[in-house]
């Protein structure tokens, strides 16, 4: 096969691109995806007081500022070597789970909805949120918007601001909540549980009741036998805010479980000349290329991988869904990329339940929300599960707490190799035989990509939440464009 070298400088035109190279028989030879790169993040941070990183890193991108705020705050706790006040920790976790509710809900209705509720082959003009609300009804759309507004209200009560929280300080949070605020949070989180259950029911009715969709989910074109990564609590249940990082294999067995601060001993990054974005892999298994199986260090870090890497959910309703998920899809691990959408809804229910548990805990209004640091360690790692995968923030400072070094591994980057593989496999499965490449088949290839909910906003520190995407099919010999689909704002 002819070698394809892609020069990122001339390739990039300010948006994400998936390029599929096919031979004369439309057989897929190679698939690349590219994204724009932002520059100078480390330089921007060096020399600033480390506490500022909890306010700077959320601005890398508008999609998951709360995840960066939490990872940064935890890294800063470690830099100062301070134990977090128990109520401060609870408030952080309550805010964080509420953010998950918003993020996962939005993903389902806006992103997965068009593919599953409208159908992958539906008219592109209708395959959008407006088409979705035409089908599910205005009442559901209104309920989703209300849920988002209430979640924003809760987040701003703890976070101080709706969009970029500022509450996280080394040792806890900046302020306690009142009993009145708590009462409101109990109400809001109770409504979130109901909405999560409603959404799971909708998924049942629309997706699982449709054998065509179930076959698509289970199809080989959308399946990858990789390792799975996720954060777990002391009982090996899924946790988004804190715990150990657990990795399980394609055989479902635990490969390793480690403290976030030791991530460099477990994760290495492979580099390809055509991509700004690195390809993290498991050190203990090694890089064997873009292949799956027990011998390849490629892993996933996503809602699906978190379920696979855990022994269950820590809340009762979500646990029941977790069990149903594996019963329906044939046991652990589930490696079907499109099942990520269902896994995301199981997590949505857990996040709502966990937020409600925290809001109803009497300790949540304890005014003692922060321990003041007394010394400095000068290095710290903060890890959370961001909606799109495990998020690592690693800071080093001088003895005055001024930043000297910053390293981030963000959610989407973890999945870089797996996404590339999924794209290629989906393209191979779909672009077989015949010269016609339909808009529907290109959309199916995009579906493989969208299941990861990829966000390159911070993966290479790119534009805030704005990722127009282009899928192009080119002849490998001629480089002529055979088909192309653009998603533009």
């Amino acid at each position, binding site marked *: 096969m002819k070698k394809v070298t892609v020069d990122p400088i001339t390739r990039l*035109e*300010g948006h994400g691109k998936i390029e599929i190279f096919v031979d004369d028989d439309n057989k897929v030879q190679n698939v690349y995806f590219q994204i*724009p*790169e*932002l*520059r*100078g*993040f480390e*330089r*921007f941070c060096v020399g600033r007081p480390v506490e500022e990183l909890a306010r*700077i890193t959320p*601005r890398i991108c*508008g*999609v998951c500022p709360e995840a960066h705020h939490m990872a940064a705050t935890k890294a800063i706790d470690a830099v100062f070597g301070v134990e977090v006040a128990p109520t401060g920790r609870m408030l952080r976790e309550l805010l964080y789970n509420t953010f998950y509710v918003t993020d996962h809900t*939005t*993903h389902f209705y*806006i*992103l997965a909805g*068009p593919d599953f509720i409208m159908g992958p082959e539906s008219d*592109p*003009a209708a395959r*959008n*949120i*407006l*088409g979705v*609300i035409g089908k599910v009804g*205005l009442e559901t*759309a*209104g309920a989703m*918007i209300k849920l*988002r*507004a209430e979640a*924003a209200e809760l987040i701003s009560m703890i976070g101080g601001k709706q*969009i*970029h929280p500022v509450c996280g300080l080394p040792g806890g949070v900046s302020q306690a909540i009142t009993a009145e605020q708590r009462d409101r949070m109990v109400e809001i989180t109770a409504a979130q549980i109901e909405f999560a259950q409603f959404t799971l029911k909708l998924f049942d009715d629309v997706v699982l009741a449709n054998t065509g969709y179930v076959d698509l989910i289970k199809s080989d074109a959308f399946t990858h036998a990789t390792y799975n990564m996720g954060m777990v609590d002391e009982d090996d249940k899924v946790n988004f805010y804190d715990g150990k990082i657990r990795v399980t294999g394609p055989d479902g067995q635990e490969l390793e479980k480690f403290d976030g601060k030791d991530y460099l001993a477990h994760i290495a990054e492979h580099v390809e000349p055509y991509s700004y974005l690195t390809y993290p892999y498991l050190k203990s298994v090694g890089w064997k290329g873009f292949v799956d199986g027990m011998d390849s260090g490629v892993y996933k870090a996503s809602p699906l991988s978190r379920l696979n890497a855990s022994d269950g959910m820590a809340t009762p309703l979500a646990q029941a869904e977790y069990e149903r998920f594996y019963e329906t899809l044939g046991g652990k691990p589930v490696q079907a990329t499109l099942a990520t959408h269902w896994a995301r809804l199981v997590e949505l229910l857990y996040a709502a339940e966990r937020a409600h548990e925290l809001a109803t805990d009497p300790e949540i209004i304890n005014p003692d929300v922060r321990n003041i640091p007394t010394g400095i360690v000068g290095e710290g790692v903060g890890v959370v599960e961001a909606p799109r995968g495990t998020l690592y923030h690693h800071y080093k400072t001088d003895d005055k707490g001024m930043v000297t070094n910053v390293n981030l591994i963000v959610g989407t980057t973890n999945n870089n190799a797996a996404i590339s593989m999924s794209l290629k496999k989906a393209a191979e499965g779909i672009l077989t035989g015949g010269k016609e490449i339909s808009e529907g088949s290109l959309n199916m290839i995009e579906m493989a990509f*969208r299941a990861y*909910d*990829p*966000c390159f*906003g911070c993966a290479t*520190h*790119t*534009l*805030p*939440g*704005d*990722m*127009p*995407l282009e899928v192009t099919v080119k002849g490998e010999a001629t480089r002529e464009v055979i088909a192309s689909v653009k*998603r*533009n*704002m």
Partner: protein
Amino acid sequence: MTAGSTLVLGMGNPILSDDGVGLLVAGRLAEGPLPPGVEVRQSEVAGLRLLELVRGFTRVIIIDALKSPAEAGREPGQVVRYEAKDFRGGHRYGSAHSIGLDTALELGHRLGYDMPEEVIVFAIEAEDVETFGEELSPPVADAAGRVLALVREEIGA
């Protein structure tokens, strides 16, 4: 909010060089004086959150940086005035996480929200929105003053 109210919304990212220009102009405008019925806000996010911000206003004026494709032949600092109708597309989602302005407005209408009758966008062609920094490039810094004057004229300040 009063009937006939106007929202001026500066959008962008304050740590991404020229992408901060919309926020800067809104900040300067907010220093006043402003005519009655005009509110100024800054927003670092778009999509559905935008829908929540613009509800209830009769008129919305958005100020944001723009990065046009090379074939558009625009120079950094060039100011382009759009109206909502110019964004009418196919409601395609460009990103996993946000929806376009037009889709957000249409969604609001369908939900029966009190949506603005008029949406105007002042877009400033950026030189660099890919480097972290708090400084604007010279042509964009220069354009900020011109856009401020245009917005003031628009709101009768």
